[in-house]
């Protein structure tokens, strides 16, 4: 080594730190840390950024054949050693080191030691050769892997997974309350800290046994008594409270999620309980139903692209076209009677036939052409053709609307002949069909055949009689 005496003492520092690091790594389990050193460990997340940047620059210069300034390498090596040692201190806070932490620790130590080795070779003859290139490539790989494992330790194992991979598992027909609901909620909100790698508060929440066992503050869960359970108490604390969980900066649980946890504990916090074991009046039943409801936007993701300019061309002062939300390709269209009506306004909509999910043509004088075009809007879920002169024949066009959920045809002259078409609209949930030529008995029959269909056939007779009768507000009797 050919150094000036000026920086010789720095070489000794590096040597000393390297030896200390090796000692730490080898005798890990025999070491008890004084409090002050444990505190130094807390600086790990701050200092770790220095070696990453400094060493990567040095490696980059080295690999591209440029001169690596000594001071750069020196700073890189020193910061790497400090980071590795502080990381080791921080790691001592975990009770049991999980796989992630284990790899992070050894890889991080590897980075520091490789960098020290490079520094030792710096300026020597070997320092120009293939060894150094090897060290540089090794550093590149080690830094990448260390950072990767470190990231997973801090942010949870699925932090780097693609968003699609993280999509929530669908809740099965008869879910196990712990496995399919509680564990899913805990995974999303709690396990990133309460796992074998971090063990915050000495509490593990990644499996049932450890969750029941509890942590530093004792039992997490009091069977049958959510209000006495530590976990629930902390969820309900005001967010500014130190003890509130999840802590600042982590995504809080929504009310439904908290309720699921509460009900599960109230029902005995068992890991075998299934939804069909509980009464229908149990709030969990409703909560599960809510959680199952898919994001309405998802079903429209596959619709063909439609440009804003197309929408602009098709719309007018009397025809409003809106995207259901944001940049969705699902369209909602409202039409109002223009001074001069021309069927082409509607037939032109064929250009976006597959995009239309809601269509309001109430009180428009629809004819054969328009109704034929409407029949081609196969993604239609909501159709208003009330107060239009449509015929039974034209109604047949609707047979192709297999996704139709809501249909308004009140105040029209359709008759019993339209019933077969209506009966076969399998997705139909709401039908508004008062004041048509259809007889009451036919509608009753339709209702029998399609019990899930809500048929609105005008006001309830008793209620409208009450409304029609003169008002009488009961006066308070004298006491």
């Amino acid at each position, binding site marked *: 080594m050919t150094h000036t005496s000026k920086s010789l003492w720095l070489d000794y520092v590096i040597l000393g730190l390297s030896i200390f690091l090796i000692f730490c790594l080898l005798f890990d389990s025999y070491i008890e840390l004084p409090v002050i050193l444990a505190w130094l460990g807390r600086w790990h997340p701050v200092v770790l950024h220095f070696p990453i940047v400094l060493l990567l620059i040095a490696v980059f210069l080295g690999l591209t054949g440029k001169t690596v300034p000594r001071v750069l390498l020196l700073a890189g090596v020193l910061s790497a050693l400090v980071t590795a040692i502080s990381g080791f201190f921080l790691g001592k806070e975990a009770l049991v080191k999980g796989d992630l932490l284990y790899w992070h620790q050894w890889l991080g130590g590897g980075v520091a030691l490789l960098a020290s080795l490079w520094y030792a070779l710096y300026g020597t003859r070997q320092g120009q050769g293939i060894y150094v290139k090897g060290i540089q490539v090794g550093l590149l790989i080690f830094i990448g892997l260390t950072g990767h494992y470190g990231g997973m330790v801090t942010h949870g194992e699925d932090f780097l997974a693609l968003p699609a991979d993280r999509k929530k598992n669908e809740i099965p027909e008869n879910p196990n309350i712990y496995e399919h609901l509680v564990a899913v909620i805990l995974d999303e909100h709690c396990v990133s800290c309460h796992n074998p790698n971090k063990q915050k508060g000495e509490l593990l929440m990644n499996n049932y046994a450890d969750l029941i066992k509890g942590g530093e503050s004792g039992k997490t869960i009091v069977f049958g008594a959510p209000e006495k359970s530590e976990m629930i108490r902390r969820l309900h604390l005001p967010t500014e409270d130190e003890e509130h969980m999840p802590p600042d900066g982590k995504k809080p649980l929504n009310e439904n999620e908290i309720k699921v946890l509460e009900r599960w504990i109230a029902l005995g916090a068992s890991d075998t309980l299934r939804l069909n074991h509980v009464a229908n009046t149990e709030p969990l039943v409703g909560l599960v139903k809510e959680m199952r409801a898919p994001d309405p936007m998802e079903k429209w993701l596959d619709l063909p692209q439609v440009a804003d300019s197309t929408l602009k061309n098709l719309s007018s002062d009397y025809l*409003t076209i809106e995207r259901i*939300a*944001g*940049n969705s390709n699902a369209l909602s269209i409202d039409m109002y009677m223009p001074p001069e009506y021309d069927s082409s306004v509607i037939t032109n909509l064929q250009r976006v036939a597959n995009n239309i999910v809601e269509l309001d043509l109430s009180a428009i004088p629809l004819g054969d052409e328009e109704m034929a075009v409407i029949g081609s809007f196969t993604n239609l879920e909501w159709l208003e053709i009330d107060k239009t002169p449509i015929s039974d024949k034209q109604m047949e066009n609707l047979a192709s609307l297999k996704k139709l959920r809501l249909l308004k045809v009140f105040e029209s002259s359709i008759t019993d002949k339209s019933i077969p078409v209506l009966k076969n609209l399998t997705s139909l949930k709401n039908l508004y069909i008062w004041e048509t030529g259809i007889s009451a008995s036919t509608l009753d029959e339709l209702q029998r055949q399609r019990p899930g269909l809500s048929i*609105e056939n005008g*006001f309830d007779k008793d*209620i409208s009689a009450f409304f*029609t009768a003169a008002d009488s507000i009961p006066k308070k009797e004298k006491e």
Partner: protein
Amino acid sequence: MENDKSKNENPLKVNRRHFFSQLSVGIGSLALGSLLIPDLFKGGTDQLAERPLGLPHFAPKAKRIIYLFQAGAPSQLETFDYKPTLRKRMGEDLPASIRNGQRLTGMTANQDKFPLMPPAVDFRQHGQSGTWISDFFPHIAKIADDITVVRSMHTEAINHDPAITFFQTGSQISGRPSMGSWMSYGLGSENKNLPSFVVLTSRGKGNSQGLYSKLWSSGFLDSKHQGVLLRSGKDPVLYLNDPDGISRSDKRHLLNEVSSLNKLHHVETGDDEIESRIAQYEMAYRMQMSVPDVMDISKEPESIIKLYGEDCQVPGTYAANALQARRLAENGVRFIQLYHQGWDQHGNLPNEMAGQAKDVDQASAALVMDLKQRGMLEDTLVIWGGEFGRGNYCQGKFDPANYGRDHHPRAFSIWMAGGGIKPGLNYGQTDEFGYNVVENPVHINDFHATLMHAMGLDHEQLTYKYQGRRFRLTDVAGNVINDLLA
């Protein structure tokens, strides 16, 4: 490029700061952006004008709101919050532990005693939901399973004007845009021939407080989002009709000329309000046709007239306005705001409230039924309520047949129906005195956040930059009450 979804208050007046930030960041990223996305500069500004904010944020449950505002603050204790304890402890002083330091208005602050006063009306449970509703509202009782009563509303304001301003704009201090203006700004118009925010007023015989047009002002938002007051009678919109002797084609001609002059002026000054003005002239031209059409109830069948009550044929009544509200909703008006004045019962409450209730009970219920029959309750949200509640103690002389109640901000009741709200729900609870909320409180900010959510808007995302900061309807607070949403 422009990630900031809100607009600048004056985009063309570039100041020194804008200029430098444009120079450093703007030009660089423009160049980079156009390299990456070749079409970046091809899109016309017209597209932006069509969908300025890319809203709603998510699929809406409600497309429009009809707000039946009961101005003056109806007492929760004689409407929807049944408190038998008040009868048991009638005349006893309001416990200090319950009042808990609540400030009072000057009208009762100097009373020696605060004797508890029971309601002068009976309550009954109605519908499958078992909702408690007072006998003042026999018609609303019939739709108990269609409505959701929230008994845990609370506010900070104790006087009418700040309280009603708070409800309308999210702030007790006037000057912010009204709720309807925010919706119009966020969602635009469903029907380009009518304003997206319409106001109708009526007045009962009860003690009234003033209503001012500031309540439906667009504040710092573009004036096209301003609420338009529709008056009863021959001229629903003042100065909308052409003077005698002017034909529609003359008017068209005139508008074309005025518009070209205005466009010149716009090029010179870059003031956005000029474009607004041009658009408003055009809309007014179309409204000359659409408004008389919407306002004409002569084609409504007998059954509908009976449903709303005979009053609905008398222009200017609450019943007429309620029917009008349905017609406006059918025609795609986003936000229809009714105000019925006369709910400020500081005295003579039993009599006055009976009258006020008679004004609104049947028509409010009829509106919900009418919307339901037309499938409009699926996407129209109806709200009924006042600006605060009323105290549980007697104001003035203690007489169960003729008493008054002072303002009370800590707990009051409203109801909602349709538009993504769970039906038949009873939400929130007050203590046995009906004085404090003890379960599921809903602050005005929460209420606004929830309404916006139903309309597909994220209340934290819909902002407008003005005077150097981004404003929201919910300002810096508000949580969506998910339990209310279907």
